[in-house]
């Protein structure tokens, strides 16, 4: 087990230097080997320093850290940051050159104090590990000042990464503080350009993203998170409402092409980034023209994601050199091996478009009024096909898809739309605002209720669903208390339609077994990964239980996978982030014949695993600017039959500017020594 030599991380000093007894046991959420090759010798960042290797040259590391902060990331936009880090950088360089004095070292503390007045956290947070180093390794610094026997600088291999809590938490790693600052500065075009660097569907993720970034917003430690999602929407709306075409210039067109399965968020994102690099991309999409967007199109109703606005994002992606072949189902209209022959690389991103069965009596009998699943219902409604829905609709499930189904049912003309969920309202996996939205539209809720049987008449038409009430038992693996049926509480909800919306599944039947592409037991595609392990030898996993750092190439060379089919059903933003990485790896594969992760890719994963946001951090700030929330259309008329007009109305530009001004710009730099 790798031993920590010294650490100030998180404010707790661990000092295992020069000890006689047992070293203090401490572990951090870091891999012992940075990239599966080079051991992680030291880590330096906003919360302190961690040394795993006693031979690391701390003064040299400190000098390098400050130099990188000042020359690569300091924005220069405040006096203490711009000048303070310059003074510190020169000071440490002078230490290494033996030109400084001991008194100079005392300036570090003074500056660390003064830099607390910085505009943002980058330079300010940079003084934390630097001061820790000077304070705890003072002798090492003084050694450099000794004219008699000045040590030689031990060369180190340093890798740095700029991050921020929101940026780290965003699966697409959008440079959120940067685009927010641009909005604050009335530069909507710059904001959108920044967003597009990591998110080619800004109109979509400005509307339907569950915005994990906001859960890691440091402003939350003052009052409420910045409304990051709606700010993204504002930048995108501004472009659309001003008829601006984004100035995107793809690199010179290359010869080798990439074939992509599925025009969903992952397929579109991979295509966009590859096309910008000059690679012609062809997306094969099973749905007809006009229905690109994958689950965003057919899984998210138009009142949340208006069709024309989604199409605009797709059009822009196509404008950089992406072709979409519609009505082309891979496996039926063209085979995967054919795609392999046609293209230098293939990216599989078919999504998760099938519904999971709900496990209730009668669901396999083909009753009239028992629909095949929420996803299919939403798709049919979206495509304008007959859905088989009657007038009284019961939807079973607690996720966003279930909510979408009850709300769409109203818009499809249901007189009664009822959601049945086996746990309580606050345990619903659906986003709170979606549940509230359904509530406002007049959806009925039956919580802590389990459907047990479909009731039909003699014509096999659904007339009701028999349910049993649930009581909460012991917590299960997910930490939520397990609901258990209460005997004798059975009752019937009268209805003519039952829609199961329990969960989504992938249809990977188009992947021929002989290609060697492995499928997990959760029906996701297996991709290659770095065997990162922590100090206890445990494999590092992401929040979905997948290996933390994946190259996204399948076990079949040249075939990559991404999106829901690789991660497991998740979010648009996760699929985009995953596909963006796939695009980078595909490019390396095509150009260098090696599908590998860059240091920055790995560092992204390492930081996500470590965690950048600290919900316990005390952030001193005056809470005098409240979070702005977008306006929405109110009243049940918004869910009247056929009314798919957008419910949420976004921000005015001035509201957005003021909201952006709340951002604390929580940049910080991490650096490792390997």
């Amino acid at each position, binding site marked *: 087990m790798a031993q920590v030599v010294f650490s100030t991380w998180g404010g707790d000093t661990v000092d295992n230097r020069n000890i006689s007894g047992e070293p203090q046991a401490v572990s951090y959420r870091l891999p012992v080997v940075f990239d599966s090759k080079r051991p992680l010798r030291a880590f330096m960042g906003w919360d302190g320093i961690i040394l795993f290797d006693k031979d690391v040259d701390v003064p040299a590391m400190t000098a390098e850290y400050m130099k990188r902060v000042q020359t690569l990331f300091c924005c220069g*936009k405040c006096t203490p940051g711009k000048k303070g880090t310059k003074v510190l950088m020169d000071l440490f360089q002078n230490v290494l050159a033996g030109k400084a004095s001991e008194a100079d070292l005392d300036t570090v503390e003074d500056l660390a104090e003064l830099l607390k007045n910085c505009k943002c956290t980058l330079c300010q947070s940079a003084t934390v590990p630097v001061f820790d180093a000077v304070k705890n390794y003072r002798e090492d610094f003084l050694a450099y000042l000794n004219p008699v026997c000045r040590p030689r600088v031990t060369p180190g291999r340093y890798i740095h990464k700029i991050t921020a809590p929101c940026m780290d938490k965003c699966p697409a790693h959008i440079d959120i503080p940067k685009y927010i600052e641009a909005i604050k500065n009335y530069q909507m075009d710059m904001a959108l350009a920044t967003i597009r660097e990591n998110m080619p569907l800004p109109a979509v993720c400005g509307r339907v993203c569950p915005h994990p970034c906001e859960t890691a917003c440091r402003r939350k430690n003052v009052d409420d998170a910045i409304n990051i999602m709606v700010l993204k929407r504002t930048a995108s709306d501004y472009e659309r409402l001003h008829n601006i075409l984004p100035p995107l210039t793809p690199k010179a067109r290359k010869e080798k092409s990439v074939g992509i399965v599925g025009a969903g968020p992952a397929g579109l994102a991979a295509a966009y980034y590859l096309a910008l690099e000059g690679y012609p991309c062809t997306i094969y999409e099973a749905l007809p023209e006009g229905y690109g967007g994958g689950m965003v199109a057919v899984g998210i109703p138009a009142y949340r994601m208006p069709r024309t606005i989604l199409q605009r994002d797709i059009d822009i992606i196509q404008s950089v050199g992406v072709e979409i072949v519609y009505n082309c189902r891979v496996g039926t209209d063209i085979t995967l091996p054919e795609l392999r022959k046609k293209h230098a690389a293939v990216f599989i991103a078919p999504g998760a478009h099938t519904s999971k069965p709900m496990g209730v009596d009668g669901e396999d009998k083909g009753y009239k009024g028992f629909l095949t699943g929420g996803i299919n219902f939403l798709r049919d409604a979206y495509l304008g096909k007959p859905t088989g829905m009657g007038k009284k609709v019961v939807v079973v499930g607690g996720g966003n898809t279930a909510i979408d189904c009850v709300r769409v049912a109203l818009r499809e003309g249901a007189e009664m739309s009822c959601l049945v969920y086996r746990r309580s309202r606050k345990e619903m996996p659906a986003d709170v605002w979606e549940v509230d939205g359904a509530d406002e539209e007049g959806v009925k809720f039956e919580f802590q209720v389990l459907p047990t049987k479909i009731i039909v008449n003699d014509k096999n038409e659904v007339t009701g669903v028999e349910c049993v009430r649930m009581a909460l038992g012991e917590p299960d693996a997910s930490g939520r208390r397990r609901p258990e049926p209460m005997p004798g509480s059975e009752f019937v909800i009268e209805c003519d339609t039952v829609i199961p919306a329990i969960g989504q599944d992938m249809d990977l039947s188009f992947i021929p077994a002989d290609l060697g592409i492995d499928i997990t037991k959760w029906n996701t595609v297996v991709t290659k990964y770095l065997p990162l392990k922590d100090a206890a030898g445990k494999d590092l996993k992401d929040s979905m239980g997948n290996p933390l750092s994946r190259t996204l190439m399948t076990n079949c060379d040249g075939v990559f996978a991404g999106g829901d089919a690789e991660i497991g059903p998740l979010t648009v933003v996760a699929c985009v982030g995953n596909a963006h990485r796939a695009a980078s790896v595909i490019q390396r594969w095509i150009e260098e014949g090696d599908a590998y992760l860059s240091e920055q890719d790995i560092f992204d994963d390492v930081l996500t695993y470590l965690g950048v946001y600290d919900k316990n951090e005390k952030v001193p700030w005056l809470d005098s600017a409240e979070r702005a929330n977008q306006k929405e259309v109110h009243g049940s008329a918004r869910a009247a039959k056929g009314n798919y007009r957008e419910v949420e109305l976004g921000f005015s530009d001035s509201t957005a500017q003021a909201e952006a001004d709340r951002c604390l710009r929580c940049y910080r730099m991490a650096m490792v020594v390997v």
Partner: protein
Amino acid sequence: MVTLTINGKEIQVPKGTTILDAAAELGITIPTLCWLKKVSTTGACRICIVDIAGVDRPMTACNTPVKEGISVTTSTPKLEETRKKTLELMLVNHPLDCPVCDAGGECKLQDTCYSLKVDKNSYGADLERLPIRYDWKLLESDPNRCILCEKCVKVCREIVGREAIEVVDRGDNTIIDTMTREPLDCDFCGNCIGACPTGTLISKPFKFKGRPWTFDVTPSVCAFCSTGCQIDYHAKDGRVERVTSSDDGFNRGNLCVNGRFGYAAFNSPARITEPLIKDGSNLKGASWDRALKTVAEGFKDAAADSDGNAVAGIGSPRVTNEESYLFQKFLRGALGSNNIDSEARLGYLPSQVIQWEMLGYSGGTFSMDAIEKATAIIVIGADLKAESAGFAYRVIQVATKNNAKLVVAGSRPSSMNKFANAFLQCRPGSEAWLVAGLNKAVLAEGLASAGNLTELEGLKSSLDLLSFERITEISGITEIQLREAAALICSGGRTAVIYGAGVIRAADSRNAVAGTIDLALLTGAVADTGAGIYPLDEKNNTQGMLDMGICPEYLPGYRTYEHAAAAFSSAWNRAVPVVQGKDLFQIIDAIEAGQIKALYVMGSDPLHYMPNRTRIMKALQKLELLVVQDLFLTDTAKLAHVVLPAASGAEKSGSFTSADNRIQCFTAAVKPAGDARSDADILTALYSLVTTGSAPVQVSLDVLHHEITTLSGLYSEVCDHEGCRMGRSKNRTATSVCLPLAPLVPTPAPTNHAFALTIGSILHHNGSMTTMSENNMLVAGEAYVELSCDDAASMGVVSGDVLTVTSDTGSVLLKARLSEQLQPGALFVPAHFREAAATTLTDSASFPQYVSLSKG
């Protein structure tokens, strides 16, 4: 309202107020360096830090909103120490070239260091010097002096809408520069210089002209465009060496290139500094006595022989109201002639006669700040920055900061397109159709204001005769575009309508203007709850000149001869003719016909701006007496028999009336150049010589104002505020009469010429005056013909090629400039440059004019 205490004093302020502003209300000053009221907050300098009880770090007062119940302390030993140390950091490696720094004596950094007693530096760093940008035009940037307050960047972006400069690079190398690091290419308005608290961005023409405190500073009004910006002339040794503007004034310190740098025209060596009299074929210097006598006698004789019919005068939109009044008084009173007109005849005057008929007033409805309260704006046929930059700045503010919708319409795109929600680009010459289409769309969408409109039915039926299909066919703008635009311009219920040369000088200008005013009526723009209608003119006092009766139709105050000639006659004790005189075009006709023999041209160059230059040249040469009173030997002056040197806007006192009807008074900053005299002095002398034959009696401005007020009934007599540039008010009775459109007839497609030419203004010049400013010429030094990239490609033309532009009236040679925004088939030539003689190509005042283009 939020209640808080600052330094123990309680105050209530509106929610959202910053601590800095709340403190200011209590009279508590918190030091700042990067804060600039007119732009968004930056929080860069960290000098304005304050303590708030319960918050464990100092907060910056400039960008922290107040909160109920907080207790703020603005000064503690710790805060003062932090401020001092922050300043010490700011001064690390700051150059010690204060003795030669342009900001020396007016440097905010110096002042702040002084007031915070910063006299040492505890910090140091290796010295690296960044290169000074000597290669920019008009501006110089020394990034070593920069404190990164970002004021310049924000003014450029948020006020001027240009985004020419940015914060670039990282760390201590962070500087203000162009994004590409190429030399600056921008509006050259110099508002960044005005905003710079240090000597980082400085005016090159001002460099080494003197220390700031050695100048006499005179508040004045800009004498270039119709915005009427409030400026300060900085003069020394009889020369204006700098123009600045205070952020506290009407225009918030924002100027354009003309306002800030155009003063160089006043100092031009080309100024005429003595009277000139034609001797054979040459103009030779003469005494004022001789010159005035020659002029007085010449005109007196010509008038006497013809009952005033053989004389005429062309007035000037450059001179003061008082001078315009004296000019028409000389023509009407002394010479007994109503043959008096000006260049406003080419467009502005006819448009304002229509506006007068429909609305009961000419010029803007409200003062232009009403635009900042608009919820929607439509700009039709105007290049705001070229025609009247103050309007551009207002529109940018309201569109970007106040959520107003902006629609830009016209044949040519402009710098406002960037902020527009829609751009309706019509084919050149179809402006009247475009406007008709907008009116039709507003009515069709049911968006017309429910105001009390007269003749609305007539307008409706005239529009019923037009189909959207036909409008699309002629203008190129679709019904959907028109309907979407109609929805935009009616959104929010407070609309502003701004129209410029593209409407005023449109092919069917009567319908275009009437339709535009109809649109203002339909959208409620001219109602009390609206944001107004604003006609634009490029020059500073066109509106005032018309108010003062420089036109044959009206006496001062738009009073008719029938009703008011007697009053004027009796006040002046001279017989004012009661018949309407000849207008500008009729004057030319009459010169050609030999009826008009003597022409007095004041501050005007008809040979430069009148259509069909060749014809005008011949006509002017036919005159028996041509007198030109000007700053420069203009094309017309070169033909004159007598040239009288006049004073510039900085060299005289009086008032100007801006396009939005603000009447602003000012006093002279310097004496007239050489022996030049103000137009008022010359006119007063001539009036005396003609009427009494005696030496002039100098009349004070107050007496003159009283006379103007009494006779015109238009301007109030005194300024509402002591010595200020604002406040003289103007009477009006507003009406709301819709005007049915006359049948629209499409401009016939020319058979012999393929290109539609527009001659107009560009933002780097104002009239021809600024072509005499070496500063303006440095950034826009010559005429050109702008053509679309498509046309250039098909003709094989590259930028800089010399092209021959030929019309039915003549041809000129111009260098090609390519435009990605101009539509194919359209050409544009800037109007300012005399040498280009572009009016050789035109045969009327409207645009487009049809021309052919060939290489070489």
